[in-house]
């Protein structure tokens, strides 16, 4: 179904064992499979495996791309991050807080609203594919176009949003308006994405289950609770996990719409990491930040997987 859910099952899939059923058994030269794999494995080694280790190594150094001396400093980059009175520490936790606020408020909306849209569209009626195509369109455009378009529409002086709502809110510079703007734009941008994933999940639930429940006299709400929700569990697990990760990596909206304002309060962790490492070239600190953020993300994924597993056990 999904990459992650699929990956989890693939680990137990007998097809991954040394002999694949259905595959030809003719003998081949021992290096043949490695020749097939080599081009990808080269890319994988240089830009995936190596950087994971190299990034950690960097985080143990005071590392500036323009300064030849890169002294080993052990865990002191990390220690500094965990000292809220240090400059880097206070900036980092401000950014982590921004990331947390955005994730906590955007994820529920990005689950519930797409699920509602998917339920509305899960039937046969005229225009269904057109609606689906329209809702999904912004995702095809990408964050740069979407961010700038909404920066324009949300402009405090000339924006359509204030005009039509009869408001006078500075969406790009004031709190909490800036959070409303960032979350609203993100919902507008990715609603269609999560909707089509839910819709695909809904269409995998066998019709006969609903028919049998109708024969038993189950009402719409009961059918939703007893058939739809359990049937969607694997898809929901994937969507929740992927949405948390995407929200926690929010960058473009903040960079284009609020530029982190006011006072860096909407500057997310990945924004700070990119700025610290790739603009100011303080790569040791930026690497340490990215490993701390990654630890939070992996813990969040762990919690999500755990929550879904517990519910199944009950």
């Amino acid at each position: 179904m999904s990459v992650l859910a699929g990956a989890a099952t693939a680990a137990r899939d007998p097809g991954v064992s040394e002999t694949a059923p259905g595959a030809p058994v003719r003998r081949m030269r021992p290096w043949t499979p490695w020749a097939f794999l080599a081009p990808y494995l080269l890319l994988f080694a240089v830009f995936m495996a190596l950087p994971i280790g190299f990034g950690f190594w960097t985080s143990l150094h005071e590392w500036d791309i323009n300064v030849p001396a890169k002294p080993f400093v052990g865990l002191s980059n990390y220690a500094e991050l965990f000292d809220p009175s240090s400059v880097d520490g206070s900036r980092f936790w401000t950014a982590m807080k921004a990331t947390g606020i955005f994730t906590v408020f955007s994820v529920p909306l990005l689950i519930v609203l797409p699920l509602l849209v998917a339920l509305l569209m899960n039937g046969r009626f005229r225009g269904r594919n057109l609606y689906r195509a329209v809702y999904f369109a912004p995702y095809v455009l990408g964050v740069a176009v979407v961010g700038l378009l909404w920066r324009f529409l949300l402009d405090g002086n000339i924006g359509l949003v204030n005009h039509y709502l009869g408001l006078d809110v500075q969406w790009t510079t004031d709190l909490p308006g800036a959070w409303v703007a960032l979350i609203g734009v993100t919902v507008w941008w990715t609603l269609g994405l999560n909707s089509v994933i839910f819709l695909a999940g809904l269409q995998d639930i066998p019709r006969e289950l609903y028919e049998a429940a109708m024969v038993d006299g189950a009402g719409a709400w009961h059918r939703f609770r007893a058939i739809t929700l359990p049937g969607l569990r694997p898809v929901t697990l994937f969507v929740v996990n992927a949405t948390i990760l995407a929200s926690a990596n929010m960058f473009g909206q903040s960079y284009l719409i609020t530029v982190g304002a006011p006072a860096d309060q909407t500057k997310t962790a990945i924004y700070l990491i990119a700025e610290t490492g790739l603009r100011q070239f303080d790569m040791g600190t930026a690497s340490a930040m990215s490993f701390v953020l990654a630890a939070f993300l992996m813990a969040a994924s762990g919690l999500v997987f755990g929550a879904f597993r517990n519910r199944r056990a009950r």
Partner: protein
Amino acid sequence: MRKDLRGLRRSLLHLVLAAVAALYVSPLVYMAVTSVKTREGAGSTTPQWIPHPVTLGAYREILGSTDFPAVSWFLNSLAAATGHAALVLVTAAPAAYALARLNFRGRGAVFTVIVATLFVPPVVLLVPNFLIVNELAWVDSLPAVIVPAAASAFGVFFLRQFFSTLPGELEEAAELDGCNRWQTFTRVVLPLAKPALVTLFVLSFLTNWNDFLWPLFVLLSPESLTLPAGLGNFQSANNIRYDLVMAGAMIASVPVLLLYLVAQRWIIEGISRSGLKG
């Protein structure tokens, strides 16, 4: 009576869906409308849905500008997205085939290691990949936005799932006819995999075309930027000219919207079935 109720529910459904659709279409229409306004028209405090006068001045200005060389950005984006998607196909397809179909020692281990990286948060790759790209002297050039992202496990995983569903008899028949493994792969398996290959190409193209953070930091000089990175620089301009910004956004949007029009089914099916998340 019952039929009336159903008709009412259907009308209500269409009303809700159409209202939501309006919230999607109208901002995009306003983007197009603003791109053909004058500087003053774009900065007007009252909404103007029908521009007067209609002008292509904004397009002319950015296409001829040296600060915002949109023609170079467009060509860079096109080259990067095409090159990236092609690289993903030529590396991921044989690897995925080996992992799906060839029996060899270490296959399970290789597959496990590749899949495990799907769980690694990409943020940890940001700084070290910048350093590696810098070592390769790729900063500020197209290979930096073409190559590193092709290391993602996504393509291999996506195609492996497809190859695993193919019936093995065809490959056996090809080998009885004297094909070696490579010939079987290129002459029998790849033609059968065309839908999956097209889907992966289109998804990789779109992801690369829209990629924002990485090109924004790894491309530096104005003429080497991609469209999203170039558009990002508008934001840092002191006085944002929205006629220019919307014209630039249109140049970035129209090609992918056309691609979406043609390949909509593949894009949506591919994404909803594989759960690609940008």
